């Protein structure tokens, strides 16, 4: 009898050992972002719900994440599940097709619960569903202090002329019409110029440039730069904004230093109540009654009115080296489905991380993040985010050029010439 029990125990141990799957996960987590604790709990819950899967997790963030992913890819030792960008930031994964096609792994029946933009393979550099974007990010949003405008006798602006009209009165009171903190260079391109160029030059212009059919010195692109030039010349954006760091914007806007604040949709997270102090930069009640999220106003010379720069967000990918039909593949798919489940997406949504691409996710939100779905619905037409389609060697010149235009040290024409030169130099390296 004793021998029988021991044998049965040994078989049970052997079977359970066989069924146990270890998944290596390279997680992208930022400890000082709202929702960090909730994110940690999400992973712990998966582990508790799936005792047959052991998660071996490595957590990195920012450049170190990308460097490590690059090293893993070079050594052929990619983790089983990892975090991927839809574009150039994760180029090695896309170009070498190192991840499984989630379209096939998850199947159309599962993917029907996600927005078309998220499941469209064309929105990813690899041309297939390398990762499933958790969000679709709008990079140019006007955060409008409606009460401040009203108190000064202004309605919500709809056109460039409306903004221009506000300048004398607000300037006299020391209030900026539209604040664009651009000390870091990229906000000018990502949060303003991508939309301006999308409306004046259009996505096709960028496609044509990349195909060698157009040049940055062409009228469309120069005109787009001229709009930025006039925003500064007319005093709508102050030249001193180029000395405001990106991190300073939300606080300055909350303290009434500007009527409008230009930033990406992700910045709603800055206004969520701080757990440590129980306070928010803008009181939630005031957020609801006195503030609005709006697209950039109609601009002079628009060919494509109403478009706003947006880009597919980041998401999870599964290593292409996992054998098809294996227990590991099943475990990875289970993890992916859990991470994109309504329950998990609702948590991420409620912490202000993003608005999920999963349809029908509901969460209790503070007023500003709660305005985002309405913003998306009202502004369905999107354009490229420039740093998503051009190489850093080119878009960094655009970023610097926009700062110079803001400072009044370079003209639109000069910047356009510099961008074209940078593009040609970059193209030469690709031959």
């Amino acid at each position, binding site marked *: 009898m004793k021998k029988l029990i021991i044998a049965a125990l040994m078989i049970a141990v052997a079977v359970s050992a066989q069924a146990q799957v270890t998944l290596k996960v390279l997680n992208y987590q930022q*400890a000082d972002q709202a929702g960090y604790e909730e994110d940690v709990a999400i992973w712990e819950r998966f582990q508790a719900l799936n005792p047959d899967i052991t998660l071996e997790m490595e957590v*990195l963030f920012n450049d170190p994440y990308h*460097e*490590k992913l690059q090293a893993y890819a070079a050594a052929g030792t990619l983790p089983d599940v990892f975090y991927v960008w839809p574009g150039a930031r994760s180029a090695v994964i896309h170009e070498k097709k190192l991840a499984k096609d989630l379209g096939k792994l998850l199947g159309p029946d599962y993917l029907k619960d996600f927005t078309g933009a998220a499941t469209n393979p064309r929105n990813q550099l690899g041309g297939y569903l390398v990762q499933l974007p958790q969000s679709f990010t709008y990079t140019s949003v006007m955060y409008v202090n409606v009460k401040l405008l009203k108190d000064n006798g202004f309605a919500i602006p709809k056109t460039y002329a409306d903004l221009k009209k506000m300048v004398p009165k607000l300037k006299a009171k020391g209030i900026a019409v539209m604040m664009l903190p651009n000390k870091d260079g990229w906000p000018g391109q990502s949060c303003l110029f991508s939309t301006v160029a999308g409306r004046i030059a259009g996505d096709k212009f960028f496609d044509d440039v990349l195909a060698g059919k157009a040049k940055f010195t062409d009228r469309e692109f120069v005109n787009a730069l001229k709009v930025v030039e006039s925003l500064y010349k007319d005093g709508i954006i102050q030249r001193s904004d180029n000395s405001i760091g*990106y991190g300073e914007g*939300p606080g300055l806007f909350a303290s009434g230093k500007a009527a409008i604040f230009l930033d990406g949709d992700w910045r709603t997270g800055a206004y969520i109540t701080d757990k*440590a*102090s129980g306070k*928010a930069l803008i009181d939630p009640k005031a957020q609801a009654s006195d503030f609005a999220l709006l697209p950039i106003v109609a601009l002079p010379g628009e060919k494509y009115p109403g478009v706003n720069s947006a880009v597919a967000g980041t998401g999870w990918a599964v290593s292409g080296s996992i054998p098809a039909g294996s227990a590991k593949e099943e475990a990875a798919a289970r993890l992916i489905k859990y991470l994109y489940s309504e329950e998990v997406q609702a948590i991420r949504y409620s912490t202000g991380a993003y608005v999920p691409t999963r349809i029908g996710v509901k969460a209790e939100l503070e007023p500003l993040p709660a305005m985002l779905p309405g913003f998306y619905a009202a502004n369905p037409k999107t354009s490229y985010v420039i740093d998503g389609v051009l190489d850093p060697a080119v878009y960094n010149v655009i970023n610097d050029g926009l700062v110079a235009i803001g400072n009044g040290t370079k003209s639109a024409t000069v910047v356009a010439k510099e961008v074209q030169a940078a593009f040609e130099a970059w193209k030469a390296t690709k031959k």
Partner: protein
Amino acid sequence: MKTEANGRIRARGLLGSALAKAAAYLVMGTFTVMTLYPLFWLTMNSFKTTREFQVNMLGLPMDPTLENFKMAWKFGEFGKLFPNSFIYTIGATAGVIALSVLAGFAFAKIPRRVTKWIYGSFVVGILLTINTLMIPLFIEVTILGIYNTRLAVLLVYVGAGLPIGIYLSTEYIRGIPTALVESARIDGAGYLTIFRRIILPMATPVATTLAILQICSTWNEFALINILVSKTELKSLPLGIFKFSSSLSTDYGKQFAALVIGMAPMLLFYVAFRKQITRGVAAGAVKG
């Protein structure tokens, strides 16, 4: 008449020296403020809530809180990372000093035909940047089967510290009179005895310099350890701090607290050993 002229010259000299002193103090004071103010600003803001920081970036905290430190310690898992930082720093420093001084002795005092080639092959490492080595090193430790081990980290840290270590040690030991070594040889001493009894005691200044360089660089090293380990149990402090650094960060309080936690040990190290550090740097700056 002559006395009057001398007095005028002396007065002018005193005025000139006072002005020069004032200028020197002004320049040094400016640099001191430039160095200390960011540290003060960071420490001060680490006691503010994120909300308070966003509306009061320059003022003193109105309602100081330790919550940022508690949360940063927990989220950064600093309790696990601190011991590793000590292990890597002490291990790598000891390894680099021991091997550099030994190699320096051999290169400087036991010349052979191949010495200059071997010496050159080490010293050329000074010119290599960490970024060029990251992926090859990752592949190497993976093939050797030591990825995710403390051994790999220590081996790489010691290897990375050797080029500058060997260069400084060799140049320093070259300055020690060769006659001392030759006399000892005539008296029948072996090279190991000569090293232990003569070279090592005389090489203390360069060893101190190496210790200072190695301690600072290993304690703050980030790029290599990021590549060499994935388990939190093996990571060091800079990896924990980096979890808090982003231009898109929204929780500045925790970010600043994490930076203060990371900065504090090095500041304490400097305060405790400032005299030795100053002496060591000065000793390393001149050949022995």
